[in-house]
């Protein structure tokens, strides 16, 4: 593929063209009177563009040369450079894959004929979002970066509020918009300080800056705040669950699978400027990362809304990635190549994995909602029989996201574990090893969360009549899911290939470290891993065959589930989602509170009563909302200054005059 493209044209231009095409794919639909063709057209165009863009991106990833273009613009912020290096290319890969898959999924999931009111805008802004993300990765001028960044943020907002006639959707949109705008404000500071340091708005080259320079830490912190808010790192995650939950599912897939990566990209890019990051930065990142991972997954366990659960697990995965990055930074600061390599490899690989299984799961949730007509897990159940294919694909995603072998989630976490352990013999940073049990705990809780999700949605029998005739999704919805599931399996069973994918980015990130030895070493280890994965598969197949043969010998009868001698079991007696997680939540009660209204049952024959539970957003509902109320009250008090009394207005004027006079003399 590469060689064939080599002579033809510059891959960077191909990628740029692909991005622009995707961005404009939704425009024709805006002007077509008839709904439908526009959507199909944009899906087709997007997929074609992605087909062109992915190989180009791969080629850019593996060719270590960076070609720079100057975009002609007439704004007073210096030249507007556009360039794609390995890091950009690496982050660009998911952009093309996920946006193409999402656009295809939309055709089946959000058919224009049924959503005349909002389909056009949805299609248009999805394209805009995708292309803005792709272009963001090419931007090398700070101001251009912010502009594209804001286009991305705003189009995401319009996607979130697609169904703005619903109250909760509007609220989610407002929270998101405020959060992202505050983040952008931090970015204003960041780029201004950077410009103050370098003298121009062009992003500095790799390792060209020194962290000893004044404001370096301030710059880094503003970057962590601004980009972290977009990536959803604790404690800047408050917007994330409701936003992802309330957007259309294929949009959630793009937002969670790719847009969060853009925040991470910003942090990666920032850190790549400095050749000597202090320990503090790595420490901050590691701390925030591991706490997001832990708290995120604990929040996820308590959720009862299918998509909120997935959103919280996004926080968890971003946390894992951030931890890896922080560990890598610590490795750089302490000049331990292995640590830097393992941390960075783990982080980058997990980014890749997350943008495989998270879209898979969100698309799957779309299929579920399409079938069940609700997001409430307590009402579902038994969907596995009605939509077996979707169930199987979703199972792959769930196992992968729990970081369980032999799927891809495990590979990246495996590398991170190796990183944590690698300092065990050294005397510096030995305490990193305590991250291992924490990450193990995260994995354990993830298993709880996703068994809960999978079990309460697909297994058992339906818990309510609310579900309207569940059915298998169409091929346009199944194809993207299958695609991602295959990717998960591929990375899971051939991790050494994935490692080759990330290594160019790593070498670009640390130009002055030599990774040849370590990369070969860990490549070998990963191949052993894949061997044992294959072994596991083989053994499972063997066992299945034996078992089938045994089954064949004895009689097979089928009956209803044994209710432990209770004859009148109904499907509503099953363990629901909430009851499944109740024990786990009670263990982590301090962190994650579940507001449960229990009725007071009195007397021998109590009347009919209802029990309701609601997982609280600890930070949002306990801290931020009260702050806003307080601000509102104080402002309301200050507003009395505008009381309509003319002569007092006059007094304002003369007071100002008087004060200025005093000041002047």
């Amino acid at each position, binding site marked *: 593929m590469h060689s064939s493209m080599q002579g033809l044209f510059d891959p960077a231009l191909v990628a740029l063209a692909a991005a622009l095409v995707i961005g404009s794919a939704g425009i024709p639909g805006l002007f077509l009177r008839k709904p439908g063709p526009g959507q199909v057209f944009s899906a087709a165009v997007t997929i074609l563009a992605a087909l062109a863009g992915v190989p180009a991106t791969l080629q850019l990833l593996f060719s270590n040369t960076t070609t720079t273009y100057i975009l002609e613009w007439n704004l007073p912020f210096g030249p507007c450079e556009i360039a794609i290096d390995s890091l950009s290319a690496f982050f660009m890969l998911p952009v093309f894959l996920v946006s193409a898959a999402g656009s295809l999924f939309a055709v089946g999931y959000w058919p224009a004929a049924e959503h005349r009111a909002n389909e056009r805008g949805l299609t248009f802004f999805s394209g805009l979002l995708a292309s803005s993300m792709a272009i963001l990765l090419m931007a090398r001028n700070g101001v251009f970066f912010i502009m594209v960044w804001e286009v991305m943020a705003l189009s995401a907002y319009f996607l979130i509020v697609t169904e703005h006639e619903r109250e909760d959707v509007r609220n989610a949109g407002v929270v998101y918009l405020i959060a992202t705008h505050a983040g952008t404000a931090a970015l204003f500071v960041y780029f201004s300080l950077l410009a103050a340091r370098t003298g121009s708005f062009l992003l500095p080259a790799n390792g060209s800056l020194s962290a000893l320079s004044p404001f370096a830490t301030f710059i880094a912190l503003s970057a962590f705040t601004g980009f972290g808010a977009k990536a959803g790192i604790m404690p800047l995650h408050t917007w994330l669950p409701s936003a992802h939950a309330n957007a259309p599912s294929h949009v959630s897939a793009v937002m969670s699978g790719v847009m969060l990566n853009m925040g991470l990209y910003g942090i990666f890019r920032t850190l790549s400027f400095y050749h000597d990051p202090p320990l503090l930065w790595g420490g901050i990142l590691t701390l925030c990362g591991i706490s997001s991972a832990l708290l995120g997954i604990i929040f996820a366990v308590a959720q009862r809304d299918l998509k909120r659960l997935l959103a919280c697990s996004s926080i968890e995965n971003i946390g894992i990635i951030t931890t890896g990055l922080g560990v890598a930074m610590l490795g750089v600061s302490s000049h331990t190549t292995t640590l830097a390599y393992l941390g960075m490899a783990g982080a980058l690989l997990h980014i890749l994995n997350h943008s495989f299984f998270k879209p898979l799961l969100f698309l799957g949730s779309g299929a579920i909602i399409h079938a069940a007509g609700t997001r409430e897990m307590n009402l579902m159940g*038994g969907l*596995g029989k009605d939509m077996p294919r979707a169930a199987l694909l979703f199972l792959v995603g769930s196992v992968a996201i*729990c*970081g*369980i*072998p032999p799927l891809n989630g*495990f590979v990246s976490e495996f590398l991170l*574990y*190796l990183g944590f*352990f690698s300092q*065990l*013999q050294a005397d510096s940073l030995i*305490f990193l*090893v*305590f991250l*291992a*049990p924490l990450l*193990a*705990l995260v*994995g*354990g*809780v993830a*298993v709880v969360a*996703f*068994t809960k999700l*999978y*079990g309460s949605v*697909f*297994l*058992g*029998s339906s818990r309510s009549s609310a579900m309207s005739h569940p059915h298998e999704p169409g091929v346009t919805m199944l194809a993207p899911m299958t695609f991602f599931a295959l990717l998960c399996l591929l990375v899971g069973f051939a991790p050494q290939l994935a490692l080759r994918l990330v290594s160019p980015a790593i070498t670009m990130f640390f130009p002055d470290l030599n990774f040849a030895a370590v990369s070969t070493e860990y490549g070998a*280890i990963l191949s*052993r891993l894949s061997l*044992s994965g294959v*072994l*596991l598969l083989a*053994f*499972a197949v063997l*066992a299945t065959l034996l*078992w089938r043969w045994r*089954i064949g*010998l*004895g*009689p*097979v*009868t*089928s*009956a*209803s*589930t*044994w209710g*432990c001698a209770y004859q009148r079991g109904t*499907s509503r*007696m099953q*363990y629901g989602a909430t009851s*499944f997680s*109740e*024990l*786990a939540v009670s*263990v982590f009660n301090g962190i994650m509170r579940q507001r449960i209204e229990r009725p007071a049952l009195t007397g021998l024959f109590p009347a009919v009563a209802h029990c309701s539970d609601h997982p609280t957003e600890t930070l949002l509902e306990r801290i931020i909302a009260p702050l806003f109320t307080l601000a509102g009250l104080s402002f309301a008090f200050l507003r009395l200054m505008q009381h309509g009394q003319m002569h007092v207005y006059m007094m304002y004027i003369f007071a100002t005059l008087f004060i200025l006079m005093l000041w002047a003399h």
Partner: protein
Amino acid sequence: MTNSIIHIFLAIVMPPLLLGVIGKTKAAFAGRVGAPFLQPYYDIFRLLQKGSVFSTTTSWIFRAGPIVALATTAIAGLLIPFGAHPSPISFNGDMILYAYLFALGRFFTMAAALDTGSSFEGMGSAREATYSCLAEPTLFFTLITLSRLSGSYSLSGMLSNVSAGAWLYAGPSLLLLIGGMFIVLLAENCRIPFDDPNTHLELTMIHEVMVLDHSGPAFAIIQYAASLKLFVLGAFFVQLALPFATGKSSMDWGIFVISMLFLAIVIGVVESVMARLRLVRVPQLLVAATILAAFSTLLVIR
């Protein structure tokens, strides 16, 4: 090569024997004759002969559960060294794979339980999920300590290194480890005081209740997988607690077998003298185990 063959042979043949020994011990404590040592083998074979009943609510997940459980445990068995002999498959970081394989098995067991749609099995899987994720850190602290002591990143390396010598300079931390690991061993294998393999009061059970609906060959596989899990984790524990190694290969195999049987007896004794814990106490005990292991880690890395 021969060692590998012996390893696999033991892994396949020996596990149910441990159950038999435990049963015998408990019977002895109860003043009964008790079932013969080979009773578990008979049970498994009988179950394999039987036909099977499947609930109408179940799907393929229900059937996949036992198989995945067995497969994962078996691979874990290939990663763990038996006695002084290194394991057939061994590479840096295999201990993490070892820990996570159980997670895979657990995932499918729980899914299978939920697939029946029975409230009891759902309850059981909920408990299993919570407790096992609390047991997870203990195992990792143990691995950290061992890896620190041995300077190796693979199970074979770190376990073969633990010897009488290790006890001299890292005695206290190893002692703490053994405490923690024993609790984890009991919890993971659902023995008393966490769970009672042969009670019939479903409300109090964890693992046993998850397999209520399995029957015939499937149940046989489950039984066998459970014993294998006990065996595999037990091997880890034995190598930690009784690190006796003579240079001679055959001798070492003998020592290994004997110490495994001894472990079984110990478990039997514990089960006979202790009562089941109330469910609310279980997490506390698990956290206590974690703390023990954490202390041991602190002792070695300070």
